[in-house]
């Protein structure tokens, strides 16, 4: 506390240094990989826990400021820890705690040299993300942002011997940098040409920008952070990079790194830019709706489990954007409670998504380890071989499908409440948009349940589709403990929403100047406005369902016999059942592909009836790749071909160019 002169920011500073030390130690310990696994990663997990605790502390503490004598002359690094940063630190710490524990088990088969390097990159990645959240000037922010991007690029390309992975990493790096340029330009606009001192966030907060320039700054920031978050149409890197990266890295990228982009949007929109315009909100809302539906639609037709999760992340980013868009609209029109409600829903969902998506990604890691297979069409029946992983992943699946009483439902509930309370906006067009948006959100949520039934059912249930699956082993103790932590947070966030909302209130107060107040009437009932309008109590809900279930079980057991006979499956009396007759991922997604056919670019090879070795091949691609990205690529190639006309590799030609340029310049001067 202040009495001993320690602030949360100091603690976070030490933890960041400790992470760097851990990374370097891992590099030194290359010869003894078991030490890296059994000591470095668990220590890193402990650091994450402390970081989350420091973040929680920072929510209630006054903002801490620190100036580091590093960086450029006249532009030292500024750090600041306020409630918004604190909240995202909790998210970062909570998710990375589970992921680091999992990593301790996951990387045990990796060779020492690679592991040491990976561990260093892993910790630099964590440090980069932490510093992004702490940065208080544009320069520091960009350095941290690039550290994050580069270290994650190297993590994605861990298996760089495989050409596809190199390609995925390149795409990721490319889009990350296009985004970074936009963010840099946005900072440039906000700085407003007021000299080098104006690059601190404090100066930007005070800058008076005209409507035009603040809109420009907002749009640039939206583009830049959107590229990192995977907002339509800048999403193409996600389904490539996530499957390429090792599973714990995918977990961190999807669970935490995407949230740094959400942090960036919130920071720029509500903190750095003093005033907002209503159409920003409409734009963000529309983008969010498109992204959400697009993501979940594509998730439904994926056959690769990590690609499926990547598309599901796109969907969730869409939901977060919807929340941000609503917040902007409500804030502009002075509806403070509603703005606080939708901001709470957004932040809550960020936290939830960090937890369950990390859980699902590390779950795919456990499956990959056990089977070496990412294609869902070759998995199946793993619930028998991997009961622990199956049970823990089930928690994540139910949470992400938005089912009560888990955490996904709470944030969805809050978001829908924000929609329900919205009428009465002065702009009637926006009023009309609200119900349509609510309908789209409901549709996306229902489709998410479809996707998750497919994900879980095809991987864990049914009969094993391949012989090798019979030797699959369950997750080890480290892997298991990481997953247990993440699953427990999903349950806790679902059961104690009142506590979480109270903490988030501190962030809302800082960002938009109002919170939900004493909305939570008491500690079991979540009631955002008042109990007359809406309330929800997950604890009572769970107790009631459990009580009813137990009662049923006891009654059935007591009154009737519990005899069970085992036999082959019935299946309408059809005897020749094989594992290949179950739905594959392809088959389960077929109705969605058929209903939304115009949105996919479908390539299909159907064998003729006379084929001796029939082979079916189907692929549903993203149309945007062909409409948007390939033309840009072709244009770039054509332009570079034009440039190459100038390049001949002959010295005298280059000297001629120089001479010509000189003449031209002299003519002008």
């Amino acid at each position, binding site marked *: 506390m202040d009495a001993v002169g320690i602030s949360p920011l100091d603690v976070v500073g030490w933890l960041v240094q400790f992470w760097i030390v851990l990374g370097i130690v891992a590099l030194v310990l290359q010869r003894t990989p078991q030490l890296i696994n059994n000591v470095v990663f668990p220590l890193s997990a402990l650091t994450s826990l402390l970081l989350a605790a420091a973040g929680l502390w920072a929510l209630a503490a006054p903002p801490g400021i620190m100036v580091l004598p590093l960086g450029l002359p006249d532009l030292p690094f500024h750090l600041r820890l306020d409630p918004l940063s604190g909240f995202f630190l909790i998210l970062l710490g909570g998710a990375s705690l589970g992921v680091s524990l999992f990593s301790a088990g996951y990387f045990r088969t990796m060779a020492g040299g690679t592991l040491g390097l990976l561990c260093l990159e892993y910790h630099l990645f964590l440090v980069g993300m932490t510093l992004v959240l702490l940065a208080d000037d544009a320069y520091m922010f960009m350095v941290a942002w690039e550290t994050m991007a580069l270290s994650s690029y190297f993590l994605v390309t861990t298996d760089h011997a495989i050409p596809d992975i190199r390609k995925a990493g390149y795409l990721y790096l490319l889009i990350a940098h296009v985004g970074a340029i936009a963010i840099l330009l946005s900072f440039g606009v906000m700085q407003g040409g007021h000299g080098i001192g104006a690059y601190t966030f404090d100066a930007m907060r005070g800058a008076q920008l005209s409507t035009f320039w603040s809109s420009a700054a907002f749009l640039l920031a939206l583009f830049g952070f959107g590229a990192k978050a995977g907002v339509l149409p800048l999403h193409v890197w996600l389904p490539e990079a996530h499957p390429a990266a090792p599973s714990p890295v995918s977990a961190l990228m999807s669970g935490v790194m995407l949230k740094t982009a959400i942090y960036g949007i919130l920071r720029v929109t509500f903190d750095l830019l003093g005033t907002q315009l209503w159409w920003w909100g409409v734009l963000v809302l529309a983008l969010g709706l498109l992204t959400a539906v697009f993501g979940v639609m594509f998730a439904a037709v994926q056959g690769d489990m990590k690609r499926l999760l990547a598309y599901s992340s796109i969907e969730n980013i869409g939901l977060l954007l919807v929340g941000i868009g609503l917040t902007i609209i409500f804030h502009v029109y002075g509806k403070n409670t509603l703005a606080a409600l939708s901001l709470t829903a957004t932040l809550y969902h960020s936290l939830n998504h960090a937890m369950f998506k990390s859980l699902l990604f590390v779950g795919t890691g456990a499956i990959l380890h056990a089977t070496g297979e990412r294609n869902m069409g070759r998995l199946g029946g793993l619930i028998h071989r991997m009961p622990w992983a199956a049970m823990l992943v089930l928690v994540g699946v139910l949470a992400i499908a938005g089912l009560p009483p888990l955490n996904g439902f709470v944030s969805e509930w809050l978001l829908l409440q924000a929609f329900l309370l919205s*009428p009465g906006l002065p702009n009637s067009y926006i009023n009309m948009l609200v119900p349509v948006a609510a*309908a789209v959100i409901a549709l996306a949520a229902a489709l998410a349940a479809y996707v998750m039934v497919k994900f879980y059912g095809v991987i864990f249930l049914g009969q094993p589709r391949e012989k090798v699956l019979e030797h699959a082993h369950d997750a080890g103790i480290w892997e298991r403990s990481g997953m247990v932590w993440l699953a427990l947070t999903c349950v806790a966030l679902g059961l104690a929403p009142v506590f979480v909302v109270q903490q988030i209130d501190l962030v809302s107060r800082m960002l938009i100047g109002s919170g939900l107040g004493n909305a939570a009437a008491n500690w079991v009932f979540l009631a955002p406005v008042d109990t007359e*309008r809406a309330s929800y109590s997950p604890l009572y809900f769970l107790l009631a369902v459990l009580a009813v279930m137990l009662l049923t079980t006891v009654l059935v057991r007591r009154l009737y016999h519990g005899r069970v006979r085992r036999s082959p499956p019935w299946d309408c009396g059809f005897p020749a059942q094989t594992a290949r007759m179950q739905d594959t991922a392809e088959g389960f997604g077929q109705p969605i592909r058929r209903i939304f056919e115009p949105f996919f670019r479908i390539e299909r090879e159907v064998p003729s009836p006379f084929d001796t070795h029939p082979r079916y091949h189907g692929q549903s691609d993203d149309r945007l790749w062909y409409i948007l990205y390939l033309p840009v690529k072709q244009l770039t190639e054509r332009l570079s071909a034009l440039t190459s006309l100038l390049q001949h590799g002959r010295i005298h030609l280059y000297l001629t160019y120089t001479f010509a340029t000189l003449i031209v310049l002299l003519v002008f001067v």
Partner: protein
Amino acid sequence: MTENANLLFAIVFQLAQLLLVVLAAPLLTGWVNQCQAWLQNRSGAGVLQPYRVLRKLFHKDAVMAHNASPLFRVTPYIVFGCMWLAAAIIPIIAVDLPFSLAADVIALVGVFAVARVFLALAAMDIGTAFGSLGARREMLVSFLAEPALLMVFFTASMISHSTQLPRIVETLAHHQFMLYPSLAFAGLAFLIVLLAENARIPVDNPSTHLELTMIHEAMILEYSARHLALIEWASSLKLFAYISIGIALFLPHGIAEVDNWAGLPLAVVALLVKLMLAGAALAVFEIVSAKLRIFRAPEFLGTAFLLAVLGLLIHFLLGA
């Protein structure tokens, strides 16, 4: 003092409704089946037939596939518990239901979703062709039906400024026969959702078996004895819950209001009449319609979704 007494009374009433719905739900199913039999010029098995079926199933030995997982075994209990709870929190006799504070309409939709997801997962557990077919189709039907149901609830919530069922019912019951145009659309949408979610014609056929067209029956094909009994009972409860929702939203008149315990007998009679009429209407509707091809079902449900959104838009436009 009276406050406390009323709360106690409300809790007792909540428990009574819990007991009532679980006992009465098979009767409603029996009534619908009997009406259908009459309409088809059959004598029918009587309204008590569902109870006899349940009794028979509970006495049999459970037969389970060799590779059934624990998920397969707990699912009937989860589904039954969820449906029971859902049916118990809808105000149909009196609006004093203390538990409805813990779960509003969005949570009610969530309860249905929990049951559905578990049933679909259990269907995929054995790994038979029919099981995964049923699961896939069930999720296909629900991904359009669930948002439509949510939109129907939203329309009612917008009118009553609350997502709590007792408040919604109270508001709607108070306005004497005032016609909400938005609710008319919502009612139409709700009818389609009711048919689809309860596996009725034209989306599914509850009496079909060994057919490539089945949805719900394909999912529960591997269940037997007490597990099947619980699932069948849960289906009855679900039908009861959906018809209750219909009554609560579109015909709430006659319900006993807050602390009006004297109005209970009248409310019970009103409910009985409403349930009988609704069951008979369902039977008539099923008799006169033909089953749709599975890929026409999304269009049918898409209509429901659009109607529900239209209802909500109309509420925004007209403010009614």
